[in-house]
């Protein structure tokens, strides 16, 4: 089973690099949706022995929200703001990929000495989850477009979720659904803010939101 999880983890790495290396918003949104689908596969593999109704339900709902509903919302926001691509990121796309590769290495180095509970059999999923989080953070600081930043936030959330999956952490149902609801409403509210920003400013470049300062 670990071999299969490792395989999916490698796909997750590829999705992250894809996310870092492209300028087209539609492709970025797709990459984040792919992340969410891969997370669902990981969820199934990790629980392959005891796939109860509750786990399947939680996985189904979160995949539906993260791989379909949120991408749909973001595509709509991009259309409303008539933005197709991230034009001039603070860090170029080639450099982003190279920095991404370096970060991946760093995550493996950090994850190696981690002290793990005996029952955890996660293969390379732990460093890959960390890499997904770092990818998201890197997107948020290196991109100017508001929608790409939201995608960074989502990638970070996906990474945190993968981290939880790697340790087979069982949060109570209420908390798990609460977290999902917060992420959903969060992206929804950000989408509304993006809509108003694009109407007010005729652009959604967050580095040009710089009136307020000391």
């Amino acid at each position: 089973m670990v071999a299969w999880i490792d395989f999916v983890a490698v796909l997750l790495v590829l999705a992250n690099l894809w996310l870092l290396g492209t300028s087209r918003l539609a492709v970025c949104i797709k990459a984040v949706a792919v992340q969410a689908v891969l997370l669902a596969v990981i969820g199934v593999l990790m629980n392959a022995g005891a796939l109860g109704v509750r786990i399947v339900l939680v996985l189904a709902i979160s995949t539906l929200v993260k791989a379909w509903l949120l991408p749909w919302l973001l595509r709509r926001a991009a259309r409303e703001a008539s933005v197709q691509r991230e034009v001039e990121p603070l860090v170029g796309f080639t450099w982003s990929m190279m920095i991404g590769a370096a970060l991946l290495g760093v995550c493996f180095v950090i994850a190696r000495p981690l002290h793990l509970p005996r029952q955890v059999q996660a293969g390379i999923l732990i460093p890959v989850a960390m890499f997904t989080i770092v990818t998201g953070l890197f997107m948020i600081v290196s991109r100017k477009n508001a929608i790409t930043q939201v995608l960074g936030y989502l990638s970070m959330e996906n990474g945190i979720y993968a981290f939880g999956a790697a340790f087979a952490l069982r949060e109570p149902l209420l908390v798990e659904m609460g977290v999902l609801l917060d992420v959903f409403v969060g992206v929804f509210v950000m989408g509304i803010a993006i809509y108003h920003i694009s109407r007010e400013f005729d652009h959604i470049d967050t580095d040009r939101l710089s009136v307020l300062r000391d």
Partner: protein
Amino acid sequence: MLVWTLILVPTLAGLAALFIRHNGLRRALLVATAAIHLVLTATCWSRPGALVVNDWLAIDEASLLFLTTTSVLFLAAAIYGAGFLRREAGHQAVDFEEGFLFDNLREATFTGCMLLFLATMTLVTASAHLGLVWVAMEATTLVSAPLITFHRHHRSLEATWKYLLICSVGIGLALMGNFCLAVAASFGSSGPVHLTIKALTAHAAELDPVWLKTAFIMALVGYGTKMGLAPLHTWLPDAHSEAPSMISALLSGALLNCAFLAILRMMAVLAAAGMGPFAADLMVLFGLLSMGVAAVFLIAQVDFKRLLAYSSVEHMGILSLGIGLGGMAGFGAMLHALNHSLTKAMLFLAAGNVLAVYKTKQIDKVCGMVKTVPVTAGLWLAGLLAITGSPPFGLFVSELAILRGALYSGHPVVATLYLIFLSTVFVALARTALRMTYGPAPQMTVQPVAHEPGWSVWPPALLGVATLALGLYVPDGLQDVLRQAARALGAP
């Protein structure tokens, strides 16, 4: 039952407010809900036995303290808000700084979000499960974001965007902290420990120390962003300066405290696991850093709402420092949280009055307030004296307690830095206060206001009286709660 009512009343009222068409009815609902919430909170003080619902929801001493602060502030903000909304209703507003016209957010949405904001903050204080604390904390960000952009123009949108993104990412790190805590809790011989505070403190010895430390750092950075600890405070001055004044009062006096409480919950777990000193040192470090950064930005501040915002960063630093030092300083920090909230809310409401009359946030364009708005001028001066820790106000007592705590626990360097930062802030704020209230006669453009409406002066005045009373006498019942809160949270 009582705890459920506390959460459900504002939730239902908030949802109802979204659909009520009649303006007067909706404003009455806002004030009535705030009053009911305060009455319910007051009953909590007399019925400590009825406050534990289960392992998930419970009101302990620390909850009670922060819940009461939130409730009192919300009532003040609701009364002020009802008047404010009546003044703003029905016409396009003109921007004070740049003179363009803009629309306001729909009043129903605004009122609804305000009530839901109360509900989520109540949930933060009443949660005894760290996962639930996280869910509630993130929910406060989401329902308060629309409140900041009530005046819908480019500056408030910028502030909202920064608030949403920075706080969501911050809180995301706190979620990572929760997961690390869950990993730390899965090493036990008797299976994983649930993330309720009760279970975690009871099985603290089984937690893995390295993962626990990682969890604390993540939570401190995450919730610290929301609390406004430097260097993660960057969203705070923008959001506080652009939000309507009663919302600034709630953000500063209630929301920051909620984030502080979330950090304290985590600290309690570390203390139970015997790692109190590790957490305490980090709190002292962040505390001093916040005070220092705030002092620097306060000296050259030209905008009076940003001035108050940076003062909040400073006071969050003081809270963090006090809790980190522990003992008497821990008690002082709890008292300080209460005092700061009351005073800062009073100041923000008074700032709202100044803004309405002078139509500017620039400190150097406001002068001679004594002649134009005498009551607000008195409140503003008293508030600024109080916030700098001058006697006889409550903050003097709590700041002194923290200083004594620092000296008795053998931290002379910390105590010295603390005093240097406090006096710098005092000079910066006192200069501003005197300029604005007295100063040369007002310009011709600002006519003296014949009558300042009751809704705009009574709420801040009563908050001021409360701060003054706490400076003169802290009731025994309150002292017990403060002491137990500081102890339960594991202040070493």
